[in-house]
């Protein structure tokens, strides 16, 4: 009997230890760090109370970062979810035959490449003098355009965002396609009998039926937008003059450039609250969908 009682715990303990030691304890500790002044290489630390938070809210770069994260979220919603949805519906429509498989595969392809590789790829594509983008523009306009897409504050963040749309629209599309494939065929048959056009079918049958998946992909996209790091780090590193900072890179910069680890921890706390609440919303939405 005794053995029977302890078995469930034996199965659980390894996983629980991993999660506690490498996820929960560091996150709790991060809250603690955020009240101190400390850096990565010196042993001591000074208690600051809420000063780090006050400083952050007075820092212009913080607002730049929030705005950039938000731009990323909004544009990703439009392209990855919006365009992804249109592509998914088109590829699943009766209009296409076997060729749909080809398009599906091609569109999904970029998302399997490591983000760092895509980032470096676009670092060269956007290069002012030898990049693909300007070369193509020059080919069509026969000019000598050498715009620095990643070097100008007006375009840098959007150039990075565009890169992510290139990479992930197909990914969201596939998620939506899988959801569309689960819609019972009869619903379409009924709609057809009533004389619905393909656009009407999309609006009145497909979209309501995959509503939950659309919500889920939207939330994934938004959370992804606030966790952003690699894309920025390998392309602009937050430059030129901090115009492309996002919360993740701002945190890295304060920790390892400014030597302010406590301050960086406070930024991490803010990332925590943003991603956590978005995730809670996701769970709420998903549960509502199941009811």
């Amino acid at each position, binding site marked *: 009997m005794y053995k029977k009682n302890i078995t469930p715990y034996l199965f659980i303990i390894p996983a629980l230890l991993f999660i506690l030691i490498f996820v929960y304890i560091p996150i709790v500790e991060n809250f603690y760090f955020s009240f101190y*002044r400390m*850096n*990565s*290489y*010196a*042993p001591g630390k000074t208690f600051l109370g809420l000063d780090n938070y006050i400083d952050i809210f007075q820092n212009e770069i913080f607002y730049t970062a929030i705005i950039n994260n938000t731009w990323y979220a909004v544009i990703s919603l439009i392209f990855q979810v919006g365009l992804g949805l249109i592509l998914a519906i088109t590829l699943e429509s009766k209009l296409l035959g076997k060729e749909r498989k080809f398009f599906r595969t091609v569109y999904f392809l970029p998302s399997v490449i490591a983000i760092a590789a895509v980032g470096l790829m676009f670092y060269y594509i956007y290069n*002012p*003098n030898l990049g693909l983008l300007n070369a193509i523009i020059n080919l069509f306009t026969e000019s000598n355009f*050498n*715009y*620095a897409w*990643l*070097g*100008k*504050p007006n375009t840098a963040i959007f150039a990075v965002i565009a890169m992510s749309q290139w990479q992930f629209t197909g990914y969201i599309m596939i998620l939506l396609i899988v959801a569309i494939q689960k819609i019972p065929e009869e619903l379409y048959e009924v709609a057809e009998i009533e004389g619905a056009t393909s656009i009407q079918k999309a609006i009145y049958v497909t979209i309501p039926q995959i509503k939950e998946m659309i919500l889920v992909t939207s939330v994934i996209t938004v959370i992804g937008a606030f966790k952003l790091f690699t894309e920025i780090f390998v392309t602009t590193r937050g*430059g*030129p*003059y*901090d115009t492309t900072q996002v919360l993740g890179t701002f945190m890295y*910069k304060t920790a*390892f*450039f*400014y*030597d*302010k680890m406590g301050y960086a921890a406070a930024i991490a706390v803010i990332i925590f609250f943003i991603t956590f609440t978005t995730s809670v919303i996701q769970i709420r939405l998903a549960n509502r969908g199941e009811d």
Partner: protein
Amino acid sequence: MSRKIITLSLVFAMLLVVTFSLTIGAQEVTLKFLHRWTQEPDSTFFEEVVANYEAQNPNINIDMEVVANDPFKEKIKIILGTENAPDVFFTWPGEFTNRFIRAGQVMDITSYMEDGWGDTLIDSVVEPFKYEGKIYGAPYRLDAKVFVYNTKIFEDVGVEEPKNFSEFITVLDKIKNAGYTPIAFGNMFPWAVSHYMGQLNAYSVPYDVYMEDLNPAEGDFAHPGYLMALEKYEELTPYFNENANAIRHDEARVSLFNGEAAMMYLEIIEIPTIEQQAPEEFKNNYDVFVMPPIEGAAGDQTALIGYPEGFVVSANTEHPEEAIAFLKYLTGKEVGRKEAQDLLFVNGVKNVVSEGEIPDSVYNTTQLVLKTERLVNWFDSSLHAEIWSVTGSELQKLTDGVATPEEVLENMREIAEEVRAQF
């Protein structure tokens, strides 16, 4: 029988003791060594230096690690926060190193220096490694910043090396009108602009005032010379190539080499790169001049920007004697000779090379450093990290023309005030 066993075991025990003490005597010491040269020929050079040292000192094992230049500035902080921090590591003297000294991470080597070692080195290039009167490191190579220019373009345009700043602007203007890029500039990482500012500050601000301002506990940058330096820099910006903030320093250097740009502000340690990588056309037609002095400015018009780079020993090393010995070797005459031959760099040892042993271009620019009475540090590594982070961004804005010198200075003073409050 039993006596045999006893004798045997005695012999065996003795053997054991002997081998044991032998192993102790020859116990291997592993030193962790960190530098920042990932590219050829430097990386091979360091491998050979380490191999030579290990061959000469069989009980020493050097565990070498390399981090590229730009990431090095972040990585070093991460690494020093760990217990397996390197025993001997690369660093830039000045505030970049001073903060590690304040955090107790760098060993004071004054006593070793006073023990004869210091006499072998050139005083003016050991000076930068001092903090509050104590010596913390040894120079690996001398450096300074000069304009390297294409003599053919200068002839073609009909201009000569400018003698002062206003002449410089005239020269730049003529070159621009002739259709060349006057100055190649890659400022994606703003250390590049910091070199301009270091020199211009030294020209515009009295030395003692400047030094005081570089101390994060006191600096307020109140002297009007700082504004003048920024304004002088702003005067240069129309002569840079486009997209200066979007390209890296070495990307920009390509346009100097291929004759599109007339000049570039380069460190003298890049002259070997010219000798190794530039096309013949350029190699045969270049010369150098220092940043033209500013007439009537308050600073020292003979000052030259160019701090040496060097190595320090970790304060936490478990093998201080061995680490010091390796540092001595690394910055000593033997390595210095090899360094001059293989890499065309000159280290801090007195008379390490003589004229004719290395290309004249290298020898002459090195003499510039040795003749200068006052070397000033790169602006980035002389500033507190936080002040530099803000200032670097501000200087990029100034480069793009989206901030004025007044705005840059105001933001700089503001962050300096915040940092002062932390001390």
